[in-house]
Structure formats: C-alpha cells, structure tokens
C-alpha cells in the first residue's frame, strides 16, 4: 500500500490487514506508556484545508504514539479565497522531506490529486475530501463493528470480516464522505448495507451502489439491523429545500427515543448505534440514544486512534524515503 485514498479501491486483504494491525495497536493505548518506537525519525504532516479538530487530534495522537514527528499545517484556501495553491503547498512539504501527508480538504479528489500529481513523494492519507471519501472513518467504523460482531459470534476478531452483518446508514448520504467510504468497505468485508434518507439527500446514481436504499427508517429497522449508523445532518440544508424543516427531518429520519424503544420491541437486543460525530443531538439522534449502552460513539473515537496508527504504520514502516527512492531508481533504470 503506497497511499490510503479511498475504500473503493481497498481490497479485502489490505482492509483486514489494517483492522488486524489496529487490534495490535489498540493494546498500546491500554498500556501505561502509550508509545511505540516504530516511526521514530519519520515526519507526518497533518495538512488541513478544512477545520476538523477531532480528526486532526486523532491523527496527531496516532502518529505520536508511533514516535513520529508531527507537523500540523492549517492551510489557507477555501472555495472562496484561493490562498496558496495545493501544488505550492505540496512542493513545500516535499522540500521539508515529509514522509506522510495526512490531508483533509473541502474539495473532492484533492488527496488523489496530491498523490498522483508528481508534486510530492510522500505517502498520502485521505483524512476526508469534500463529499467523496473518508477512508479512516470507515475503517474505524468497521473495526468497531467487527469487535461487536465477533463478540456476538464468539469468534476472534483478528482475520475476520463482517459477513452476515446487517448495517443501516441513515442521514445526509448525498453530502457524506463517511457514507460513501462505508458503503464500499462494508461491501468488501461482506456486510449488507441499507441506506436510509429522504430522496433529496441521496445522490442520483445511488441505484448503482452495492447496497439497498430505503426512504423509511421504521421499516428498515423492522427488517432487522445489527448496526445503526446515523449521519450528521446540517440543519442549514433545509434552506436549500432538501427537507422542509429540522423537526420534520427528526420525526421521519432521526433516531429518536421512540425508535430507541422500538429496538427492544423488535427483539433487536444486540443492535449498536453508531455516529461519526460531531452529533446534532435532537436532530439526527436523540440524547437518550446517543448516551444509551447501545451507543458506540466513544468507542469509535478510541478506535479511530488505533486504526490511524495502523494505517500510518503500514504505509511508513516498510521502506524509508531513501530506500523508496533507490527502488524507484532501480525500477526506472
């Protein structure tokens, strides 16, 4: 694996390897000294064109637990103000010999552009790009689901996939990079996925995705769900007529107290409730649901560090920059 750009092109072998490595990494978090020397002397740059404190500190913690040097680079340049170009920023980081660049960008495809442009030699990790993908989020979600699923099936997590798991993902699929990354990864790992959303918040073309689509959360729950993932919905979407009001959205597609109670009456005693955060309590998820024993919200945050450690470790622990350059020379000569 040279970069981690998307889950769409992540094979089952690599996916399971990341999850298995994350299991090993999670043990580090339980130790008194939460640090491994694996990436000592390596430089990881967190290049954020879009604010995301949660994701940045998760990557920062992951890199630091592997003893890498971490540089946080909050780049200017929004869709409105151009600022420094991606090319110039990339070449600056290349001149500083960055080994890995963790990039968060408001523009879909920016990480792929960075990886394929020839502007920089570093490994590129997509930390969320526009409405395209957020692969480490999907990996940490899968990690969380795999632990739950293995416990239920009394299997070891390591080496396992998610065959047979029923996942429902509800919310603003149209604008969600989390939904996209989850759909591809969960398919690769053998889970079955149902997307639940108002028709306005599903992309044209969703019918080609490897999943079911429903407009009705209650009937989806009634069919049986093992993991219920709620996506963040921006209340401002109502201004663009994606839905009439926040209250109507919450009633029809929010995971409220009534639906929380319905899990028991439906006999879904082991169903977990997931959310990538940050949550809009009272909109897509009620406080009772978010704080219930079924909620995995904090476990997801914890697992995020392990999964990101695994990704950085697998991308960087192999060859050093110099060795990669040597290999390039050999292969191109």
């Amino acid at each position, binding site marked *: 694996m040279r970069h981690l750009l998307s889950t769409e092109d992540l094979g089952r072998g690599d996916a399971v390897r990341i999850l298995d490595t994350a299991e090993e990494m999670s043990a580090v978090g339980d130790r008194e000294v939460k640090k491994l020397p694996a990436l000592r002397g390596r430089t990881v740059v967190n290049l954020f064109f879009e604010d995301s404190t949660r994701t940045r500190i998760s990557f920062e913690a992951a890199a630091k637990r592997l003893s890498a040097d971490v540089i946080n680079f909050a780049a200017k340049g929004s*869709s409105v103000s151009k600022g420094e170009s*991606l090319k110039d920023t990339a070449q600056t980081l290349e001149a500083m010999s960055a080994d890995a660049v963790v990039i968060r960008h408001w*523009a*879909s*495809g920016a990480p792929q*552009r960075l990886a394929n442009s020839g502007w920089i030699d570093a490994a590129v990790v997509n930390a969320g790009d526009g409405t395209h993908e957020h692969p480490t989020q999907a990996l940490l979600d899968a990690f969380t689901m795999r632990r739950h699923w293995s416990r239920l099936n009394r299997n070891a997590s390591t080496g396992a996939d998610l065959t047979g798991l029923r996942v429902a993902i509800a919310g603003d699929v149209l604008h969600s990079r989390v939904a996209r990354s989850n759909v591809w990864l969960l398919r690769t790992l053998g889970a079955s996925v149902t997307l639940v959303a108002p028709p306005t918040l599903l992309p*044209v*073309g969703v019918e080609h995705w490897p999943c079911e689509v429903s407009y009705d959360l209650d009937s989806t729950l009634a069919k049986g769900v093992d993991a219920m993932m709620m996506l963040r919905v921006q209340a401002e979407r109502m201004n663009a007529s994606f839905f009439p009001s926040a209250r109507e959205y919450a009633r029809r597609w929010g995971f409220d107290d009534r639906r929380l109670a319905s899990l028991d009456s439906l006999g879904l005693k082991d169903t977990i409730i997931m959310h990538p955060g940050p949550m809009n309590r009272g909109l897509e998820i009620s406080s009772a649901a978010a704080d219930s024993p079924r909620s995995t919200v904090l476990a997801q945050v914890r697992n995020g560090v392990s999964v990101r450690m695994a990704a950085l470790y697998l991308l960087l622990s192999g060859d050093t920059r110099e060795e990669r350059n040597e290999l390039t020379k050999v292969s191109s000569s």
Partner: protein
Amino acid sequence: MSSANPAGQTPNADRYLLRGAAVLGGERTDLLIGDGVILETGTGLSDARAAVLDADGLVVLPGMVDVHTHLREPGREDAETVETGTRAAALGGYTAVHAMANSSPVADTAGVVEQVYSLGRAAGWVDVRPVGAVTVGLAGEQLAELGAMADSRARVRMFSDDGMCVHDPVLMRRALEYVKAFDGVIAQHAQEPRLTAGAQMNEGKVSAVLGLTGWPAVAEEAIIARDVLLAQHVDSRLHVCHVSTAGSVDIIRWAKARGIKVTAEVTPHHLWLTEDLVRSYDPVYKVNPPLRSDEDVTALREAVADGTIDVIGTDHAPHPSEAKECEWAQAAMGMTGLETALSVVQHTLVETGMISWADFARITSATPARIGQLQDQGRLVAAGEPANLVLVDPAARWTVDPAAMATKGRNSPFAGRELPGAVKATFFRGHATVLDGALNTPYDFAGEL
C-alpha cells in the same frame, strides 16, 4: 510535397498547383490556385509560375469554419492571443473562426468587436469573426447594443453570452426577436443556472461515487426546449451551442421536424470522451458542458450523421497551466480543440463509417459559414471559388503533444492519444498559411485595410 514559394512573389500573389487531390475524398483532380481563387480544376494542369504540390493520397476540403472559439484577447493574453489562437486554427485546417464574446472587456460594444476583428486581420491566419455578447457584460440583465455591433466593421451576425446562459425567458425572447432586424442569430449556451449551481461534472453514477456536484442533463434540455419554443413563437433563428446530451438531441430533432429555425453544434470532445475520465480528478477533463455518458456520445454521433446536429464547434478554451494544476473544484472549465478537431472528427465519425468526407465538409465548413453568414467561406471546391481550402492526409497517424501546439493552452484532453489524419496545407484566400504540416506565413491584409 514541395513547399517552396517561387522567388520574387509577394505572399498574396501565390500560385499553387495541387496534383491529384481527392476532392471531398472523391474524384481526383489537379487544382490551380492563384489570385485568391481556384483558377482551374482538371487533370494534367500545368502552370509555369505555380509551386507544385503532390497531393497524391490527400483529400482537399473547404477550409474549416469554427463557430465556437475562445481567443481570450482582449484581457487574458496569458491564456491565448488572437495571434496564437489563429495560428492554432490554421494548423488545424481552419480558415475562419468565430471569436466568443467572453473576453475582458466583454465583446458587448462595437469598439471591442472591431478591436478583435482588427487583431484578426493583423494576424492574417484566418478570418476572425467576432461574436457579440447578447447582454451587457454577459450579465443577463440588459441587451447589449446588438445593432451597433452588426453595423460595425466586424459585421457581427452571431450573438452569444457563451459561458453564461441567457436564462431570463423574456430577455431571450427579446434577443431572438431583435436580431431579426439584421438577420442575426442567437447562439445559446444552454444551462439552467439554478439547476447547476456549483456544478462540477455530469450528474449520474460517476458523480455519485466521486462526490462532485452534478450538472444534470435536464439543466441543458430544459433551456433548449424553452428556446426552440420561443424561436418558433417569434419566428427567429436559434443556434444551440455545444449540445451534450441524448435528451437535447431528441428535442432538437423534434423542433426541426416542426420547422423551427434551429441549428445545433457539438464539440469533438463530446463525440468521444466520457465522464469516466473524471475518475482521475485530472482537471484537464473539466469542461462545460461536462463530459457525459457513453449513451450520450452515441446519440451525439448519430445526431451528426442524421443531420439533427448541423455543425462541429470546437469550444477551443485555452487556459494557463495554473488554472488546471489544482484541485478539480478550483480548476477552470475548458479544453483546447483547434489543432485536434479534424482528427477527432475523422476518428469518431469518418472512420466509424457514419459520415463521408463530403459530410465532413458540410459540418465543418459549409453549414458553419452559412450560420455565421461568411460569404467567402464554406464554398464548393470548384473553379472560380475563393481558395479557402485544407489539404488533409487521412492516412497519417500522430500522437498528441500539447507542448508542441501553437495554442498557448496546454489543456488538451487528447494528450498522448494517437489520432488519425493530418493537415498538410491550409490555403486562406489563396495563400498557404500552412505548408508541409507546419505554419508558413500569414495572409497580408495590408493592402485591404
């Protein structure tokens, strides 16, 4: 093929004898060119003063006329100038181009269109026919002085807010009506603005995966449907720029069947490339209207073959490299096209057997000249006609290298592809602007200014 100019001739006194050229790909003949016209055709011609060109195996066609070119001057001379853009045109086999109005300042006054016209004459590579803006500053609010542009030295007949759609239905109606006074035509960039806010690529299965804001086909089709009905209502001429969807083709076919005066153009890139290329996120594939699906490409090719689409327009849109070396969403829309159009049309339509070289002449020369009302362009290849001609080697194969092009734009979506067909010579008013596949010298308008 000899390229020598006989000594002592002024450029405009050129005489050329083309030996054995296949006229429109058919009958082979010699052509004697002199005094700016085709003097004689037939076999076994000879002329002591003429430079002889062996045209064995070559096809002679009327010089191509582009209805849709962005020359960027005035204002964006970093992207293209009239000089560089018309050099590219000559190399591509063109003898006339219509320069779109979205310059800076906008070509919305007689002064600006006359400036562009004069720059074209000074360059001397092709006829430059400025397109006038429909509305002041392309803002879609108030009609520009269309009559003044029509009456100017540039004699503007085609008006377009290209890049922007004249979306206000009342304004579009008035524009269609008003230009009847001087037999003008409104060339519409059909794009419903509210349905395409922030649009980045065709809306469909690829945009869903890539998370790029969709440019739905309906945003083009809804405007075309409205406009053909308006054109019918006020009995005016409408030209539809760069048609890109199968649905648009259906609407135009319907309109033509009802006798509505509508013509339509398609770009070479929409005849070949599809949205799947966007998966690379390489902005060289970012264009407006966007690359569509395989089904759309098929429908567009069939529409050219059956006459629903009348002409090829390149929508040649050069950009400086920094406008493309960036994130997809930041990148400018547009592709170069003048130097690849002939080859791409040969590849997609001639070599697929869908059209003949005679059809090629109709869609790249005769009909575009008629739409733009260029009297000396798009004529027959026959004695007495103006010598605006292109000599093509259809058997040639070449690999596209944007760095080697005459245009300043390096944004060719065909970079690295092998294409058929090469322009061996272009004759503009009887003068060879291109010889041996390379630029020769421009036509000298000095005596006519």
